[in-house]
């Protein structure tokens, strides 16, 4: 509008440099969900299973394997935990639930192995969501990590750490002889290993890495193998904790 008063230049401020429309946002979220499942979450799951398997070697073996994590300066540890575990997990879990809700499973009439795995991928995600909340709550937030772990308190003569300071004995106390909790953990391990293996396989299709049928079949062999290996490691770890008597138990 032309007026007689002073003209003022209008300054347009773009607050959002990248504005996606609905479709672009949908595509981006789906891709992000898929990517986060592999990195960092898939990587973390593999690391978690492998380092926890050091439990099989007893207290020293376990504590030297996870010591680097426990000794890390707290702010660094927290940043890592939030950026590589908590935030991706939250997004992958919550957005995954939305995706799972859209499927109408039909394994009754179409009982192909792939279709069953498709359903299992969704079923395991429900269990994992509940299990992981419990697992994180009972170990990370109300458990050992909140007490001050100081490795220099190791009894030099015996090489052992006293019960309250030892993360090994902390886990042993939880699980030793507790077959019910062992079963809960076993299901968690099985679900995670399956969800990981199957997820890696579908990731390879969703990003166009394995295109032909042969390639997809080969990938199935590879990821079944890795999934089974993780399953075996995890089961052995849980078994060790459940079946080992807790010497500190009175």
């Amino acid at each position, binding site marked *: 509008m032309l007026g007689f008063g002073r003209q003022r230049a209008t300054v347009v401020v773009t607050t959002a440099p990248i504005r996606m429309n609905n479709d672009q946002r*949908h*595509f981006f979220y789906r891709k992000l969900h898929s990517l986060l499942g592999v990195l960092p979450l898939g990587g973390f799951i593999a690391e978690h299973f492998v380092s926890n398997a050091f439990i099989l070697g007893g207290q020293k073996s376990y504590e030297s394997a996870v010591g680097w994590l426990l000794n890390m300066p707290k702010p660094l540890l927290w940043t890592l935990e939030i950026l590589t575990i908590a935030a991706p997990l939250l997004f992958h879990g919550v957005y995954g639930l939305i995706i799972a809700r859209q499927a*109408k499973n039909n394994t009754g009439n179409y009982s192909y192995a*792939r279709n069953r795995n*498709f359903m299992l991928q969704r079923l395991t995600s429900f269990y994992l969501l509940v299990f992981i909340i419990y697992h994180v709550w009972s170990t990370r937030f109300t458990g050992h990590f909140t007490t001050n772990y100081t490795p220099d308190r190791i009894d030099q003569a015996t090489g052992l750490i006293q019960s309250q300071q030892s993360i090994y004995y902390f886990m042993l106390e939880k699980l030793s002889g507790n077959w019910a909790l062992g079963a809960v953990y076993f299901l968690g391990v099985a679900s995670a290993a399956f969800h990981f293996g199957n997820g890696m396989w579908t990731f390879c299709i969703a*990003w166009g890495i394995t295109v032909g049928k042969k390639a997809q079949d080969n990938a199935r062999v590879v990821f079944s193998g890795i999934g089974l290996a993780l399953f075996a490691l995890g089961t052995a770890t849980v078994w060790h904790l459940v079946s080992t008597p807790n010497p500190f138990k009175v």
Partner: protein
Amino acid sequence: MANEPIKIRIKRQPGPGVASSWVDFEMPYRASMNVISCLMEIQRNPVDASGKPVDPVSWDCSCLEEVCGSCTMVINGRVRQSCSALVDNIRKERPGEPISLEPMTKFPVVRDLCVDRSRMFESLKKVKAWIPIDGTHDLGPGPRMNEVDRAESYKLSECMTCGCCVESCPNYNEDSKFIGPAAISQVVLFNSHPTGAMNAGERLDAIMGEGGITDCGNAQNCVNVCPKSIPLTTSIAKASRATSVRMITNLFDR
């Protein structure tokens, strides 16, 4: 059992949006019957198994040789073409039980076994499953394709939009906007054609949104039920690769 009368149980629905109910039919056995000839038998003599007169059953069919896709329905719980479903074979699937016929579940029922597959047509329109060559002047002969690509494309071009793949797909339903594997495969078909490739970006954009390529969950039922054995999961992976690359290059090219 070979020459026993044929028992058929049909899920009937008098019109769109009204309740459906199962009705039993029975007819004498004749050699080499298919589901369509059974339905024709019912049309000639529209009485149910108890002899009560009923309205003739509606169904769609055209080519009778499994190339048009219009006769697709759910037979014994599995989606397929009724013209190529032979009574001798499908009776063996559920011995002693009647053959069950239902309309496809992923589309609105028009009447009895007729469904409205407009959603599939809309998907084809959305992904621009054609090559625009209409114009005011002669564009000359099209470019030649090499034989390997041609053979692959020929396979994809056999799709008859029958609906088997989307019927079996867990992610294709009334709650999702998924366009389904058939339309995705058509994107691959038209993008691999030398002339069609000129609009490749538009077709990729069309599947990079809600209901597009990311909504496939890799249950891979589609490839297992497709009567034309179209490598749908390979098409899906190719489209995934093309859209992933497009997403990444878009980040840096814009």
